[in-house]
């Protein structure tokens, strides 16, 4: 509709994804701010900022994500080295922040924001603030605010909130216990102090910063002798053309600091918006296709059959044709998309190749997308529409409007000779990482991996993955699990230590369509690194709907630490009922409720922001009937995760994704079995919602 209005009035329809937003300065805490103090600014919606800052004996690495236009959240990993040997050694600290914009800046009024730093409460950065920022004459940005906790230390005064309730006067001692819980009983309590500062923009590249800090660094001062008596900090911010920011500081009259930061917009692909895939084959004029088709054996010619030509041409585009049927002026093909991160692009290329290959009297195309023989969706379109709309200004949307996307429970009758059995394998390097555990910011494992999928018949999948780690620091950890629960995950280091060649999974699965909008899976074998057993799943996923529901039940038995074929004694029946919901915009909500590996009952809540191009950032938390004391450090299972399509980075189509989950700590409560090929993610990319969302790539 918006497009239609644009065309009618001839007005400019600028990229919604923007890029015009002014770059915000990021503080040493990696959030919009001055040097140590926050400002009321936020990042452009959806942006992801990475910051690394060092000064004196502190290093902070922060990831900030603008999850809503008015809310950002941060994850921080800090290192504070200790000079004083008599006290506990250096500190690795993980902390989460959240900032809410209460008011947007206007011509006459300031922006107002409120934030919580380190709201999890074990750490040293626990503080809260309310802050106002206002721009003057385009170049001056003035900020003033009030802080509590760590931000309420310098020249502090009685908490003005005590007017509401006397309890605000004192900040209770940090009784975080196992940590990881919200320290809500501390928020905005105890003495308060004022802070403020100014940013002056010299030009588009350079800014000068000055602030009055309300933080006295009492923790660091007492342990490391850091001198923060002088309240002022000064800094320079230089923005390079490639988007990298370099900051230099003179802090607290006693030390200097440096900082690098970069904010990215996931809606912009580094390799260019259009990608550098080869061009699709042009649609050949109908008379040329007609002339070429005279030589087909179907017409008494002696060339290859249309089916063989079609199959070879699709193969050259990374599309595997597994079904083919011609009836009543309509051609139906079944293809497996092995290349394109957008299913719509696979459909578009299939349609072009069909038009360039099949005799002209075939007027209707039906393209069924399948994965290892499991039909997922089908797209029906008219050949004539391709010719008419290939060069149309609004071609992709008009093509979509004239096409039909349906649920498809079976492929065309005609199978393609030799399509099954099918083998896919890979032998090559792998790397995996574990970030920010309590003792080491980075652990890694690099080695060789062999993976193979064998599909003897449609829907039957034999799958294996074996790895030989060569360089590994995963097994360097000296921690021994102190968990009072069954050690269902916390012995992960023993698996790393006691294995040589690892069988990561070795399974036999059957995937099928029990009915319309229904998907089913059964899997048996070595399901994951730590468990083997059986798994069965059913998913109801209406085509084009926002909601999907699923259920899964598993019997799991714990595997030996050598990750080969043996089992330990522990076994459990575990399973979940799941609901998946796509919110308007880019949000995905998932709730899984059921029984976890340690026998605990509860639910996992996951919220992801998945951009239309597949870039995904999310957070999850699991709450079960395991108490925080039983759970141990961290109190409950939680983490953040990323999924970045490799094609997003390189511009060349591939379905591979780089995935990473960051968990503060992996323990035994709220631990879920990791089964391969869970149905929702297995079929989602080829369901109607994603097909329509990425339809702009139909003619790409």
């Amino acid at each position, binding site marked *: 509709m918006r497009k239609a209005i644009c065309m009618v009035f001839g007005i400019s329809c600028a990229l919604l994804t923007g890029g015009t937003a002014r770059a915000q300065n990021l503080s040493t805490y990696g959030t919009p701010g001055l040097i140590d103090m926050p400002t009321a600014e936020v990042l452009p919606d959806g942006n992801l900022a990475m910051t690394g800052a060092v000064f004196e004996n502190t290093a902070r690495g922060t990831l900030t994500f603008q999850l809503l236009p008015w809310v950002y959240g941060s994850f921080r990993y800090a290192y504070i080295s200790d000079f004083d040997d008599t006290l506990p050694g250096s500190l690795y600290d993980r902390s989460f922040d959240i900032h809410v914009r209460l008011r947007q800046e206007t011509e006459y009024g300031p922006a107002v924001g409120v934030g919580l730093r380190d709201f999890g409460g074990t750490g040293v950065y626990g503080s809260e603030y309310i802050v106002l920022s206002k721009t003057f004459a385009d170049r001056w940005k003035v900020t003033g605010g009030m802080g509590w906790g760590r931000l309420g230390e310098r020249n502090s005064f009685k908490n003005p909130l005590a007017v509401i309730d006397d309890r605000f006067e004192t900040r209770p001692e940090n009784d975080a216990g196992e940590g990881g819980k919200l320290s809500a009983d501390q928020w905005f309590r105890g003495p308060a102090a004022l802070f403020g500062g100014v940013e002056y923009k010299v030009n588009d590249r350079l800014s000068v910063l000055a602030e009055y800090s309300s933080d006295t660094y009492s923790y660091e001062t007492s342990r490391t002798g850091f001198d923060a008596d002088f309240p002022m900090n000064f800094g320079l911010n230089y923005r390079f053309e490639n988007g990298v920011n370099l900051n230099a500081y003179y802090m607290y009259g006693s030390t200097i600091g440096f900082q690098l930061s970069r904010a990215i917009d996931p809606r912009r692909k580094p390799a260019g918006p259009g990608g550098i895939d080869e061009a699709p084959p*042009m649609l050949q004029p109908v008379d040329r296709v007609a002339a070429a088709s005279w030589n087909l054996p179907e017409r008494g010619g002696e060339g290859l059959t249309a089916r063989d030509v079609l199959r070879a041409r699709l193969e050259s585009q990374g599309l595997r044709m597994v079904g083919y049927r011609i009836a009543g002026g309509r051609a139906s093909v079944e293809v497996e998309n092995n290349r394109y991160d957008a299913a719509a692009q696979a459909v578009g290329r299939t349609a072009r190749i069909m038009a360039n290959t099949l005799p002209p009297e075939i007027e209707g195309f039906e393209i069924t997308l399948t994965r290892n023989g499991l039909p997922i969706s089908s797209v029906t379109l008219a050949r004539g529409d391709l010719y008419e709309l290939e060069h149309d200004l609004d071609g992709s949307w008009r093509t979509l409007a004239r096409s039909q996307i349906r649920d498809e429970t079976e492929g065309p009758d005609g199978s393609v000779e030799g399509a099954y059995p099918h083998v896919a394998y890979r032998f090559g390097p792998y790397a995996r990482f574990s970030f920010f555990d309590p003792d080491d910011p980075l652990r890694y494992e690099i080695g060789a991996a062999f993976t193979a999928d064998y599909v003897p018949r449609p829907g039957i999948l034999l799958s294996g993955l074996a790895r030989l780690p*060569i360089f590994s620091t995963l097994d360097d950890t000296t921690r021994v699990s102190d968990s009072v629960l069954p050690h269902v995950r916390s012995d992960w280091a023993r698996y790393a230590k006691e294995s040589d060649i690892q069988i990561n999974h070795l399974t036999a699965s059957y995937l099928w369509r029990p009915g319309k909008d229904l998907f089913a899976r059964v899997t048996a074998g070595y399901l994951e690194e730590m468990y083997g057993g059986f798994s069965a799943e059913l998913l109801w996923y209406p085509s084009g709907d926002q909601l999907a529901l699923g259920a899964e039940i598993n019997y799991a038995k714990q595997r030996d630490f050598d990750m080969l074929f043996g089992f330990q004694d522990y076994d459990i029946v575990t399973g979940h009922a799941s609901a998946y919901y796509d919110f308007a915009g880019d949000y995905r909500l998932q709730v899984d409720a059921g029984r976890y590996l340690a026998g605990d009952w509860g639910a996992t809540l996951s919220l992801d922001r998945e951009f239309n191009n597949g870039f995904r950032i999310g957070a999850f938390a699991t709450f079960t009937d395991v108490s925080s004391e039983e759970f141990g450090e961290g109190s409950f299972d939680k983490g953040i995760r990323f999924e970045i399509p490799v094609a997003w980075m390189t511009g060349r189509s591939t379905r591979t994704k780089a995935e990473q989950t960051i968990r503060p700590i992996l323990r035994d409560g709220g631990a879920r079995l990791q089964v391969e090929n869970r149905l929702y993610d297995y079929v989602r990319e080829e369901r109607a919602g994603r097909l329509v969302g990425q339809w702009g790539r139909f003619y790409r």
Partner: protein
Amino acid sequence: MKRAILIAVLLNLMVACSNTSYEIETLRTAIGQGDARPDPRVQSLIDAGAPRLQVGFLKSGLAGTMVLEGERDGVRTWLSVDGAALLTRDGMVVAERGFGGGLMSSDVSQPLAAIRSGREGEVTRFHSFLTGNDEIVTRSYKCRIEDRGEKEILVQGKPVATRLMRETCRNTDHEFLNLYWFSRASGRMVQSRQWLGDFLGVVTMREVRGQGA
């Protein structure tokens, strides 16, 4: 035994092998060595003596020859050796594939009619771009067409008498300038300089004569 496995594996780390994925190509692209592989389609077209087009991208410095894949519906598709394509209608670029810019389609009927007839005036042009978020956005531009008179240019070392038409376009986000040189003798566009969007900037194009274009 273990050492033997280790060596085999280390060797394998250099080169991953697979029958399905395209990770080696991806890797080569990532480290910037991905353009040595000519598209088989292009080779056969070159062998068949298809018409050619010289192009140069001013922003990236990329330059080379493209070959005509075919024509349908008045739109010609030109392929580069690595399989990227430029689509032109009567010499005016309407789309691009594989150069990264995401120019999916255009409506250039107004400027095309004006420059071909040598008529000055105000026209509107429309471009549809694929964004980095896999969505299509359509932008419109107000353009002023001017006749810059006769110019003699060199095409393959030979002077050619041409008429130069200039198109100056703007909307709230962008401003650009397109230039078109039409041969006095044949009336055909022999050279041009055209804007392909924010990401790619300007492309210069020149026909390679003697190919029956």
